[in-house]
């Protein structure tokens, strides 16, 4: 029987094999995704990220069990790093997931990053699509242990859970500009340890300052249509020259304390939003909650699940879920078009010998690379590959 039929009938071996094909970049995987794409777009994708050793796997284990108890079907994807030397990997997340894996309803797959940076593997987005099409209600995606810049998960997950632990001390400051910005929900795990209160306070303080307006939209910082999202950086992008006077006063405001700074930021954002004909910031907003957990003892899990599901409700009620589907679709289309166009042009240019000829001409300084590239494009940008 074909993999498609078995997949549609709910055969878990077919799902597992489909994931392997996607990981290996096999054409069969692309064909399957074409066929099942209509079934996707329903699952709530929750990304779980944080530094190595924070307890991500143990927390995912507890979350999966708790979500199952609330009647959801659950799949888990966990990414671990591949060796930069051998290309091999040891994927050990199952060791920490014994509670959830005792439940035959939970499907769990370990992925190696295979040299991809950013916290995920290249195939993770396709793997999530396959799990979505298979019918899981919730897909928990655990990243590799993340530092400052492994923020790719925010483009894949609807809800990003950032897991931290007490004792990172000044590291909180250090990672402030990285993964701390992408959290829709925060967990301070190992909260029975000394310093948990301080860690919670530090995160809350960071949220007070850095997430004025609509932090839940933080995940789309590149898109000018969602202004309130990106706080100060978003303002700069939207309004590079005409900063509102309130923003100029910001350094002074910060000196006067968080409340003053918040007021100035909000005023500046409202001003910018109005200029661009966008909804006022703060109209419906999401303040990332901070939850204390002790995953080893299953403490705090229920509260954390409440917060994650509230974020899903927030996305749906505020219209962000639908907006997100459109933005994702556009991003994916841009990515594929540029991939196909590149392949087509370079394929034909290389076949006809044009590529080699023009490269020679550029090397001999007979033509500049810009003109050469334009020549290649105008000659070979025809029909897309079959």
């Amino acid at each position: 029987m074909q993999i498609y039929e078995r997949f549609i009938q709910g055969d878990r071996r077919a799902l597992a094999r489909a994931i392997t094909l996607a990981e290996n970049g096999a054409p069969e995987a692309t064909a399957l995704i074409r066929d099942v794409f209509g079934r996707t777009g329903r699952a709530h994708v929750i990304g779980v990220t944080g530094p190595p050793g924070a307890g991500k796997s143990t927390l995912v284990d507890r979350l999966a069990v708790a979500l199952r108890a609330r009647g959801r079907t659950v799949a888990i994807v966990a990414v671990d790093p591949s060796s930069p030397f051998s290309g091999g990997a040891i994927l050990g997340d199952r060791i920490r997931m014994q509670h959830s894996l005792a439940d035959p309803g939970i499907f769990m797959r370990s992925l190696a990053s295979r040299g991809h940076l950013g916290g995920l593997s290249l195939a993770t987005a396709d793997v999530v699509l396959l799990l979505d099409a298979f019918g899981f209600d919730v897909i928990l995606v655990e990243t590799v242990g993340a530092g400052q810049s492994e923020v790719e998960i925010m483009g894949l997950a609807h809800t990003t859970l950032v897991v931290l632990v007490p004792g990172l001390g000044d590291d909180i400051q250090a990672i402030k500009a990285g993964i701390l910005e992408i959290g829709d929900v925060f967990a301070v795990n190992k909260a029975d340890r000394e310093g948990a209160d301080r860690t919670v306070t530090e995160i809350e303080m960071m949220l007070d300052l850095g997430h004025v307006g609509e932090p839940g939209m933080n995940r789309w910082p590149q898109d000018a249509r969602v202004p309130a999202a990106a706080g100060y950086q978003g303002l700069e992008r939207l309004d590079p020259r005409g900063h509102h006077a309130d923003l100029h006063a910001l350094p002074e405001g910060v000196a006067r304390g968080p409340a003053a700074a918040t007021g100035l930021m909000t005023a500046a954002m409202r001003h910018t939003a109005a200029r661009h004909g966008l909804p006022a910031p703060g109209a419906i907003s999401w303040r990332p909650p901070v939850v204390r957990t002790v995953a080893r003892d299953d403490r705090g899990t229920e509260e954390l699940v409440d917060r994650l599901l509230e974020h899903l409700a927030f996305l749906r009620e505020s219209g962000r879920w639908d907006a997100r589907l459109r933005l994702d679709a556009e991003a994916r289309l841009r990515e594929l078009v540029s991939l196909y166009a590149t392949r087509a042009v370079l394929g034909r240019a290389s076949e006809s010998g044009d590529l080699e000829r023009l490269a020679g001409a550029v090397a001999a300084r007979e033509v500049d690379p810009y003109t050469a590239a334009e020549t290649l494009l105008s000659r070979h940008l025809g029909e897309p590959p079959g």
Partner: protein
Amino acid sequence: MDRKIRVLVAKLGLDAHDRGAKVIARAYRDAGFEVIYTGLYQRPEQVAEAAIQEDVDVVAISSLAGAHNTLIPELIRHLREQGADDVLVLAGGVIPEDDIPFLKEQGVAGIFGPGSDLDEIIEFTRQNVRRV
């Protein structure tokens, strides 16, 4: 297409000694394989289920507690029941000579006792992986 050999390294039953399992996991990693390590105290049906979800080519069982004649055939039965009969099953650890014919008859493709050469195990695995 980037094809990686995936290996599940597992310990079955009440067997707490996983140093050998870790050594072999590491050797497979260094040979460029993707290794899923499931940890201790696994039941045969759990290991079979993990092998299916992870879509592995190989299940390598490390046994040092003497229950191999019961647990390994049980694992193979679960794999076959679920249609995963193309998975290569290997065993290592402390397995007496006398038990080897029985285990091979049950479907264990290779058995590697103490002092086995790691390169040999890796080469055997590469040569005997069944899936294309």
